[in-house]
């Protein structure tokens, strides 16, 4: 189980006058995600979604609060936690000079997948994501969609329990986006926990069990899509979001 407890993240920015100013990218964030749940993190650009997911993935340290995976926290169990999570963002880049096969093998080794299982694991992942045709080509020669599939494959190859996807479908064509969405649904069936950030509200509505709406670094609503729509008396999450901003709802 994933528990994000009272997480704050403070940054320093330079103002117009050249002075330094502190600001909170995220403030008092509390989220719980159970096995087999897909949690959608929704919000406009600059809302604090990426910062939050980077904190959950262990790339950023929270200013206050803690992140726990199955009772383990980053301060004491960073390596153990990282072995069990996969992080993918729309900006994530992979090693272009390698082939997908070499990359996946390298990832398996880093995640300490049993050496006897590596070959089978790569074959299995390549089959699921239809990568067999370009498995041995250099990544730099692949299309955007193929590269993103390789990116997903590297998240999948060590069979983690937690997936953290930050705008993973942004900039992708419909087919490539669908592959990612199908993959997320399959992993849910296996009991995996998925945190999924997007600004495509319809996409989230379709696949998420629970939605966390963030605006200006604060959670403004956390519930199922149906509950949010019912509460805001709207028919879709887009309208619900605007309704919540307009009403100034600020769930603590």
């Amino acid at each position, binding site marked *: 189980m994933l528990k994000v407890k009272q997480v704050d993240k403070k940054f320093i920015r330079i103002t117009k006058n050249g002075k330094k100013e502190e600001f909170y990218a995220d403030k008092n964030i509390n989220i719980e995600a159970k096995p087999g749940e897909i949690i959608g993190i929704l919000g406009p650009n600059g809302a604090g979604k990426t910062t939050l997911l980077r904190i959950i*993935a*262990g*790339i*950023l*340290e929270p200013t206050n609060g803690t992140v726990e995976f199955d009772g383990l926290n980053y301060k004491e169990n*960073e*390596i*153990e936690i*990282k*072995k069990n*999570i*996969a*992080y993918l*963002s729309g*900006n*994530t*880049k*992979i*090693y*272009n*000079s*390698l082939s997908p096969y*070499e990359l996946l093998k*390298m*990832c398996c*080794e*880093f*995640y*300490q997948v049993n*050496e006897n299982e590596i070959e089978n694991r790569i074959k299995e992942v390549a089959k699921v994501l239809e990568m067999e045709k370009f498995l041995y080509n250099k990544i730099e020669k692949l299309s955007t969609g193929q590269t993103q599939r390789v990116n997903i494959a*590297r998240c999948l190859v060590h069979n983690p329990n937690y997936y953290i996807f930050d705008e993973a479908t942004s900039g992708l064509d419909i087919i490539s986006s669908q592959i990612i969405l199908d993959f997320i649904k399959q992993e849910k069936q296996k009991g995996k926990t998925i945190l999924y950030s997007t600004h495509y509200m319809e996409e989230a509505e379709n696949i998420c069990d629970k939605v966390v709406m963030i605006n200006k670094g604060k959670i403004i609503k956390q519930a199922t899509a149906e509950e949010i729509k019912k509460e805001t008396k709207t028919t879709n999450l887009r309208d619900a979001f605007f309704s919540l901003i307009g009403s100034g709802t600020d769930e603590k």
Partner: protein
Amino acid sequence: MKSNLYLVFKKEIREMFRDKKSLAMMLIIPFMIPLLVLGMSALFETQMHKDISQYNTIGINYEPTQIEKEIIEKYNINYVYDTKEQLEKKYKNNEINLYITKENNNYTINGVDNEITTLSAALAQNYLTTYKQYLQTEYLTNNQINSSDVINIITINQNITQEQNFFVNYMTVYAFLFIMMAITVSSTYPATDTTAGEKERGTLETLLTFPIKSKDIIIGKFLSVTISSIITGLISLILTIISLFIAKDMFSIYEDANIILSTSSIIYAIITIIAYSFLISGLCIAIASKSKSFKEAQSALTPLTFISLFPSLIAFMVNLDTNIIYALIPFLNYTMIFSDIVNENISILNIALMLLSTITIIIVVLKIIIKQYKSETVLFSN
């Protein structure tokens, strides 16, 4: 299970050997050394062995006697007889290399100090000294005095052991300095590429999500850059030895010079190259990993190239001898030990101290960098 340090090292080495720029820096830079060695040897050769026709045209404003003509001919001087004013003009027009004016018994050698004039003046001096000796001998003989009793009243002998040919010593020491230069220059690119370059390409974020400790990332990157530097250093050493052999065959300045390094000298040279590669790679990684971009890393590393050579140049200029203090001073110690290796004057103690100094510096530098290498600082410091 393979250790993460080994896996990071393997990843870095694979990337380095697939990157054309890194390969070029590693393999092509050493090929500059033969050009420098042969070019400098050719320059010394032309300085040492100037053709006499380039400086033997000497003007005189007096009609030489028969005996003077014979001496002039003996010294291969091509004399031009004219008035003082005309000789001045000819000298200015480079028609003559020097001119001698005579008033009564006073001979004056005229010219402006430069390389050609110096050689011409030496020729003129020989001619006038020989002529003076002739006149002294003739005077003494006419006065019935045994001239050899006077002229050879004392005998001067020289018993100075010939040291290693100056040019050979100079060239071999500088050749080792070129090796250090090659290692320094070639280690800056992979160090930049593997740290700031990886950050700029966006793959560092991916690497930092893997279950790897900062220590393994930094040491893995450091070792890969060190391997690249050692390869450059060893290729440079081989090419230096080959080019000195070629130079010995091509240029007479190397006549009778011993440029063959003994096996032990070569082993010590390799040890010094490896130690220097470790130090420079550690410093390059430390500087580049703190940089926000590739460009910033390269700018930050440029002064290191000069700083690494500065103590060496000073050591050559003031002709320092290695001692236990100098053996501990980074950069200075490598050059001085190279100089000792060339002169077959190797001290095991100094080499041990150089290694001790190198290891201490590397440990301190890496510890500082590992402590500061947190994903947030590395990825989002700007």
